[in-house]
């Protein structure tokens, strides 16, 4: 069992390689400071993110899942993020209905030039999850 006193939120982010991933890179090379709680997985497009990834991440004990892609109209593949948006809207509503706090699964549009926005998104999400506490959804004893 995790010790509550030194607990740090553990986040996983699925970032589109054409925008948000480069945005994260820009945040780094511009030496912006943001919490080190996010583990990044590079995906070819936000529409690559299957709902299975999200649920498995929560089952594996991540406290929050971020899906980030290109702004509407700016998808490298023209339309991928529009499909992702439809799917994510349904997933968000459904997971909330099951009893998963909406803060645990978040989405953002971050372009390759928005290093600052990326840092902000991660900082905000980390704080929200810190307030929410550790994810014990899939634990046998809560």
């Amino acid at each position, binding site marked *: 069992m995790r010790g509550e006193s030194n607990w740090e939120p553990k986040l996983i982010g699925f970032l589109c390689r054409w925008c948000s991933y480069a945005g994260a890179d820009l945040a780094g090379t511009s030496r912006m400071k943001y919490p080190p709680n996010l583990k990044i997985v590079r995906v070819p497009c936000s529409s690559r993110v299957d*709902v*299975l990834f999200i*649920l*498995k991440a929560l*089952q594996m004990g991540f406290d929050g899942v971020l899906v980030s892609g290109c702004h*509407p*109209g700016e998808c490298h593949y023209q*339309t991928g993020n*529009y*499909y992702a*948006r*439809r*799917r*994510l*809207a*349904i*997933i*968000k*509503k*459904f*997971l*909330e*209905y*099951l*009893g*998963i*706090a*909406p803060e645990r699964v*978040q*989405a*953002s*549009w971050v372009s390759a030039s928005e290093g600052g926005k990326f840092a902000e*998104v991660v900082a*905000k999400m980390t704080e929200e999850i810190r307030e929410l506490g550790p994810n014990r*959804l*899939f634990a046998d004893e809560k």
Partner: protein
Amino acid sequence: MKSSSVEQKLRQEAGELLSSGKVEYIIGFERGSSKFTTTPLITRDKGDASRLVIDPFISVNLARFLTELKGRVGIVAKGCDSRSIVALIQDKKVIRENLVILGVPCSGIIDLSKLERLTERDREEIQSITCNGEKASVDSGGRKVELPLNDVLSDSCLECEFPTPQEYDILLGEPRAGTPRAARGKIEELEALSPEERWHFWEKEFSRCIRCYACRNSCPACFCPRCFVEESEPQWIAALPRWQENLIFQVIRSIHLAGRCVDCGACERACPANIPLRSLVRKIYDVVDDLYHFKAGTDKGSTPLLAHYESTDPGDFIR
């Protein structure tokens, strides 16, 4: 049991379809081996047409068998079955021209366990169940009871928006009006709970699941040639029927059904552990309707829900 006029018309039409060679198969229902049950009948023999039945126990969603048959097929379809067929046409899983749909306006499927509870009789003690309009008369050896039909119908039928087939070639019987979508029992009850209580509810329900996959196998919209639960690289779901794995399986299945599920209730009826599966898939049905005004299986010309987008789709949840 006396056969109804709808049943006679069905037998005649099915016989003609088979003997004229318009279809190679007929998919319908025949009397089941135990009392008050029916079982799917898939036949090429016109002599079998006389075995076809239509009664308030034709619970299986027959669209489920379409993806397994090749060639021209005649299929008996209730309102929900017809919508599942339309959803399969949208997904290009079946070709409309290869089908002859024998539509049956449906008055609802009787839930035997509700009927047993209300009459305090086991199904073996009941001799006959007859439906007259809004009443069901149950005869259990000298004791006759009349019940409001709505008290003994399946939950999914009580909330059915389209009892009349949405797509058919031959309509057997008179069209019936549906119930408009409204806030309903179980889902409303769950939504009134706190998120923790809801999660705990599902944890409890899914600890009973034995992962027999009857829900998946009874579902016409579960047509993946290989289900993700059976993949081994990566192995998404462990073979152990722990509640965590069971819940993930069902959540993913529900999301795969977005825009395909017509809320026929086949999964819930098939479940040997009585898990309220409809409260999951029906929620997806409602979410899809609220967000995109998409009702599965009502328009064979439209693209599948998730293979389509609008630039105006809601996106206010995205930062």
